[in-house]
Structure formats: structure tokens, C-alpha cells
């Protein structure tokens, strides 16, 4: 009696290893996991785009897409087909190699980070002792893609957009990284499984309320900035730079940037969920009288918990995006280097002391 997918995964693994030699089973599993992840990546992107369009329409007193399919849900499929069929415009004076490599760097960075998330109990593709470090490292690959895209397009708008983006992403990476390190101090491990298991009784945000909350807020701000979304959407500030670094891309190439951007939003929410809100762990109250409540919470499958938390954070990010105006580049850097960064460093110290005392 369980809605968990853990058993399905185990069953598949056992079935494969018992009927095939080890190397063949492993090969098939690699391919299967890759395909499943890719499918999940695309489906999530579609859901996110649909959600964003519907939700932002509600914020703006509009209806959003409502003609194609029920509640306009097929609009996305139509848009996806359109973007796949569009001509890929070749820019004659661009740096060809970098121009094509850039998109893949952006999407690989995003996809590899996505793959490291744990979506539910037993639903982890890679799980090794420096998991969270890996996430931080591989997600930075995207910025190289953006810089190369801006540079190789041979366009002044894209170049300014890319330079802004470089400055922005690299700066905000620091706060995001330090916030996560703060939580690593609390968890005592870089392993994602350990981090999640450490939150079985209480999510980290409740285990050390003050420093964890500060780290959580800083991580949300920094993460929001890393995804290049308003109020931090300077790299693609359409009123100044038309579309920023991806001005010259068309068709599916543009689609890749678009996809990566949306998924990055989810990834940031996913990492925040994992590190601060207990990952796929259900909400438990650590007290004797609450065992009935805890049991009910356990009944909800772990992947629903994970997705639910992650989507709540995504909703928060949409809300912020559609409310605030854009910052200017110097204000953006001021916010990071003079406010967020010192606070998060101090916060890390507080967390260390906290861990020593309690």
C-alpha cells in the first residue's frame, strides 16, 4: 500500500539485473534514466510556461490563453510545434562555432543540475558525497553559454546583455553559494541524501530558525537573480536591449534558451526545497500528540511533496516577477556586493555558532 515510486524503480532494477548481464543492465538503465529525465524536463517546462502565462494573466486582469483546448492548455503544444518548425536564421558575420556551442552549454548546464535533484524517495539519479557542490558547480556552466552567445552573435545589444549577465550571475552565485554552505554547516554533509534525511523530523528552516530563514531569503533573492527574471532581468531587458544575449537566435535555438530559463526557475526552487524545506520529506511535527497528523502527512507521496514545495516557490517567483520594476545594473551589483554578500557571510558565522551551541 504505497503510492511511492520507489518500489517501481526497485522492481525495474531487479528485473533487469536478474535477466541481463551487469553491463547490459547498467547500459539500459542509463538510457532509460536519461530519456525519463529529458521527458520530465520538457514536460515541466511546458507546465511552467503554461502556469506562468495563466498566473501572470490573473495578476494583470487578463484571461491568458483560452482558445486552444480546455483553458487554453493546448496553446503550449501549438507554440512548441511552432518553435520547432521555425527557420533557424544563420548570422553571416557571427563566430559560427561559439554561436552554436553556446546554446548547448546553456541547456547542458541547466539539464545536468536538473538531473541532480531528488524528486522523491528513491528517485535520485546521482547521489554522491559532494552532490550539493556538484549542483553549484554545474549550474554555473550556463553563464558561459550566455557569455558566448552574446559575444559570438556579433551584435552590440547581445554583447551588452551578455556582459550584464556575466556580472550578475557571477556575483549572485556567491550569495547563493554561501547560503547553501550555511545550510551545509547545519546538515554536516554535502551529500544530498544526507541533507534530506537530516530533515526527517523537522525541515532545516525550522531546525535553526534565525540563520536558516535569513539564508533562505537570501538564497531566494540570489536564485531569482540567477535565473535572469524580473526584477533582475537586465540581461534581456527588452526595453533597452531588445532581447539581450539571445537577440540573434531564432527557432529552436531560441527555444533552448527559453527552456533553460524556465527550468532554471524550477531548479532554483528545487534546490531551495531540498536544502531548506526538507526536499521530499513530508511536514512533520515532532511531538507525541501529533503522530496521527504525521501519519496523514506520510500518506502523501514524497514526489508530490517535492513538486508541491517547488511549485509554491515558483509561484512566489512569478509573483515577484510580475510586480516589481527592473533594477539598474549598478543597483543590482550594489544589492549583491554591499548588502546580500556581507549579510550572508555574517549569517554563516551565526550558523556555525548556532551549530556549536545547540
Amino acid at each position, binding site marked *: 500500500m504505497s503510492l511511492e515510486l520507489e518500489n517501481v524503480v526497485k522492481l525495474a532494477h531487479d528485473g533487469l539485473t536478474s535477466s541481463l548481464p551487469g553491463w547490459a543492465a547498467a547500459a539500459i538503465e542509463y538510457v532509460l534514466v536519461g530519456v525519463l529525465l529529458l521527458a520530465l524536463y520538457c514536460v515541466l517546462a511546458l507546465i511552467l510556461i503554461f502556469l506562468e502565462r495563466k498566473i501572470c494573466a490573473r495578476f494583470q486582469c*487578463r484571461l491568458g490563453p483560452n482558445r486552444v483546448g480546455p483553458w487554453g492548455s493546448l496553446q503550449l503544444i501549438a507554440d512548441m510545434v511552432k518553435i520547432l518548425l521555425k527557420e533557424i536564421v544563420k548570422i553571416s558575420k557571427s563566430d559560427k562555432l561559439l554561436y552554436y556551442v553556446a546554446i548547448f552549454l546553456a541547456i547542458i548546464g541547466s539539464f545536468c543540475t536538473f538531473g541532480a535533484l531528488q524528486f522523491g524517495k528513491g528517485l535520485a539519479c546521482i547521489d554522491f558525497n559532494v552532490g550539493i557542490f556538484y549542483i553549484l558547480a554545474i549550474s554555473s556552466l550556463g553563464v558561459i553559454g550566455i557569455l558566448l552567445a552574446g559575444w559570438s552573435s556579433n551584435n552590440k545589444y547581445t554583447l551588452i546583455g551578455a556582459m550584464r549577465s556575466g556580472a550578475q550571475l557571477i556575483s549572485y552565485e556567491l550569495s547563493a553559494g554561501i547560503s547553501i554552505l550555511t545550510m551545509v554547516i547545519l546538515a554536516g554533509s554535502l551529500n544530498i541524501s544526507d541533507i534530506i534525511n537530516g530533515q526527517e523530523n523537522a525541515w532545516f528552516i525550522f531546525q535553526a530558525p534565525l540563520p536558516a530563514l535569513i539564508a533562505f531569503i537570501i538564497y531566494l533573492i540570489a536564485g531569482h537573480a540567477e535565473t535572469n527574471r524580473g526584477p533582475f532581468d537586465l540581461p534581456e531587458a527588452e526595453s533597452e536591449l531588445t532581447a539581450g544575449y539571445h537577440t540573434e537566435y531564432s527557432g529552436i535555438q531560441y527555444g533552448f534558451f527559453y527552456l533553460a530559463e524556465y527550468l532554471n526557475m524550477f531548479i532554483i526552487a528545487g534546490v531551495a526545497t531540498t536544502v531548506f524545506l526538507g526536499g521530499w520529506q513530508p511536514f512533520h511535527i515532532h511531538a507525541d500528540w501529533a503522530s496521527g497528523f504525521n501519519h496523514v502527512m506520510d500518506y502523501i507521496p514524497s514526489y508530490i511533496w517535492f513538486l508541491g514545495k517547488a511549485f509554491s516557490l515558483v509561484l512566489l517567483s512569478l509573483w515577484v516577477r510580475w510586480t516589481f520594476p527592473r*533594477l*539598474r545594473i549598478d543597483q543590482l551589483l550594489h544589492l549583491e556586493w554591499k548588502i546580500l554578500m556581507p549579510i550572508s557571510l555574517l549569517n554563516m558565522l551565526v550558523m556555525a555558532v548556532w551549530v556549536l551551541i545547540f
Partner: protein
Amino acid sequence: MKKTKDIISSVASGLTVEEQQYPTITVEPKQWRKLAEKLKANGLDVLLNLTGIDYKDCLGVIYHLTSSIEKNTMVVVKVKTPDYEDIAIPSVYDLWESANLYEREAYDFYGIKFVNHPDLRRIFLRADWNGYPFRKDYDANPALNPIPLVNQTVDDMEDMPTLSFDKEGKLITKHHQLFENGEYVVNIGPQHPATHGVLHLRVSLDGEIIKKVDPNFGYIHRGIEKMCESKTYPQILQLTERLDYLSGTMNRHAFCLCCEKALGLEIPKRAEAVRIIFDELTRIASHLLGWGCMCMDMGSITAFIYGMRDREKIMDIFEETGGGRLMVGYNVIGGLANDIHPKFIDQVKEFIPYMRKMLKEYHILFTNNPIAKGRMEKMGILSMDKAVSLGVTGPSGRASGWACDVRKIEPYAGYDKIDFEQVLFETGDTFDRYLIRLKEIEQSLKIIEQLINNLPDDGFKAKTPAIIKLPAGEYYQRVENARGDFGVYINSTGDKNPYRVKFRSPCMTLISALDPLCQNEKIADLIMIGASLDYVIPCADR
């Protein structure tokens, strides 16, 4: 008008002064420079309008000068060249900065050579255009100016000629370059989401910091003033709305007033009141769009849609009564095209409290937002002196503290009987220019409220002749449109077509303020400052 007389008596000894609508001094080019300096010293610090004109035996320039302090002060100076050959007139760009673009325009259309002007490029037409289109003997044969079918570089936009006299009194041309070699120049526009129309800005950048902005006009130049010369007066009304399409009603009102003044028509009180209501509704609609676009340019798309949502209500009111939405086409010479719709009064009464409520929402959503404030405060400061010199009127001028509301300084169409305030700010930064629009909406609502409850009932249109012919003479009418001081100059020879029509565009001076405001600011602020000036390109290009 005493003040004007004092000025005239102190400067115009030995010159011909005509008492027309405004005192008019006629001089030769040689006398002009000295007279200009005297006029400036006597407090006429605004060059409101500069009109080139072809008198068939010579060319002329008409300067409308006014004061930024004294109400009801206006002096007109006509400078006539001796003949068609010797057409050099000294430039006055250093006395009134607004002359910079105005003189370029007169040069472009009439070929009048402004001596010592630092940047005598053609403003609307291409540098290699043959002929001067506003001259009466212009040959419009398309073969003379074929349409180029291949890509061309924009380098010829950068060569700035200056005319000056050499020692022997001969005109010589010196050339200098707009941008130095190696400057990082970015083209913003003409096709760009944030220039609010087809404006082409050449921006020289140092990283993110702006060194120089050079606006390029003419991408939507339709030659409206030239078209007016071959159209009848009722036909011209349609063209006025297409200048600044966001304050079309007010432009049309200005032209009607000018014709009515010339014809000596007395229009019904009801028509007068409804015209004001329409003007103020248009002003609200325009300010809402201006507010929304400014918010959008700062990245807040939600605010833009809020503005559009409420503007839609005004458009619906217009549609019900006038038939049109953006170009209402409601004012005609002598009154209104038809009486108001039975629902009109109720709709307007419903709208006033709604708009007041929404204004509060705007302040919550955007005005008090720390990011918005941080972006706008202390940015792009336009001092009052600069505003006066550049001729930046309207909300942008009033944000700098210049009391330039034509409804107050030269009341027209019954505005003097209405109780409202002229909103003034002091610093002249972007935040003031932002806030003043929302404050003016409140004042407009107040005006409408006073009129809507007791509309007179004396018909909507005065009797006009079947064919409208203005008596020979010159007429000038100023109105306050949503962007500033809009002026209509009509020179009539008594025919059914005007001899020359000139529209004083508030937007052109607004655009000329971009360069001084944006220097040493970031590129993101260029867009925001441009939006805060709220210019409409078809108004500047005409």
C-alpha cells in the same frame, strides 16, 4: 499686455511694429541678431515656435517669443530675406537652445541658411535630398529623388556642417564629425520596443554609461504641414489628430479655435464645455498610457496593463459619443460634429470616482515601490533654466518648476472660468516627471466634475459658411495638450486653403532634452528618461 508694450518700446526703436494678434516686428537678417539679443535681455527667454515661410519673392522666418515668468507676453518677429538668393540668417541657437532643432527644420524645408549654427544637418529628409519641399516652386517629380533600393550606411548622418562668413563676407562651410573615431555607438531604433515610435537614437556608450545621444528624426515624416497647404480647413482637421495621436482631440481643438478666432465665430456654451470635457478625458487617457509605458520601460508590465485597462474606459466613452476611439473626430469648426450620446453624462460620472480609486492603486503598486523610487529619484534632473531654454513645456516643464500651463497663462475656450490648479514640482527629476502626470489626472477629473453636472443647453454647433475661407492674415493659437504647449500657426490669403500652416510640436523640444538629460547616466536610464518625457514621435516628425 503692458509688459509686452514695454519690451517693444525698449527694443524696437526705428523698426516697424504691427499690432496684429501679437505685436509683430519685421526686420532684415542683418538687424536680427542684435534685436534677438535685446529681446532675450528684456525677458523673452522662450523661443516658442519658429516658422519658415516662402513669400514667393523672398523667404522668411517667423519667431514666436514669450516669457517664462510674465503671463500673456508674446512678441512675434519676422525676418525676411531680401530675395531668393541671399538667404543667410544669423542663428540664435546660443540664445534659445530650442532654436537648434527649429532652425534645422527651416533649413531642411526652405533651405534657409542659418549662419553659425553648429549642426546644420537636414532634420527630416535625407542629406542627399534634392530641393527644399516647402518652397512654393518645389518640383515634386519622383525622378529627382528616387527611392534607394539598396542598403545604405548611416555615415552621412554624422557629418555636421556649420556655415560662417569668412573675412571677405563669403559664406563658407566647415564640417565636423558627430562621433569621434572608435566611439562605441549603439543604434537604438528606429525599430525598437522602447522608443515609443520610430525614433532613431544614436547613442555613444562607455560601457553602460552614455556619452552622447543624437536623435534622428524623419522616419514617420508625412509632410502634414505641406499637405495642409492643398487641403480645405475642414479636411485639415483630420490631419491634426494624426500629429500627436494621444492628444488628438486637443490638437483638433487648437485648430478649430484658430479658425474660429479668424472667422470671429461665437460657439455655443454647450459645445465649449463638452470640448473641455473631451480634452481632459483625452489628457487622462494620454497620461495613463504615458504612465503605463514608463512603468513598462522600467520592467513592470503589470502596471502597463493596469493603465491600459483604465484607458479603455475612456476610449469606450469616446466611441459612444464621437464614433472614434483614438482619433475621435468630434470637434469641428464652429462646435461639435453631433450632440453627446444620451449615456455620455452617466458614463463620465461613473468614470470619475472609478479613476480616483484606481489612482490610489497605482500609488500602491508602483509609486511607493522602493525599486521604482530608487530608479527614478535624482535621475535625469532638468533644471528650470534648461527647460525654459530648450522650450520643454507641458508636464515635463512643470516638473522642473516652470509654470507653463497654457490653460493658465493664456486661457482659451473657457478654461479661465474653471477652478483647477496648475501642478508644479521643483526638482525636475524623473520621479517628479512621473508623479506630475498622476497629479494632473486628479486635476483633470476636478475640471470634468465641474462641467459635467451643469452642461448648458444652447445647441452644439454654431452656423458656419458652407465653404470655410479664413480672412487674409496670420493667426496663432496655443493650447495645452497632454505633452505641452501645442501651437497652430495659420497664414491665410483669404482662399479656401491656407497659405502656410505650422504646428508647434511640443514633442520635438522634449526629444531635444534627451541628450542633456542622459549624459553620464546609464543606458537603462535613457529609456526611462525618454519615457518620462513622454514624447510621441509622429508629433515631432509631422
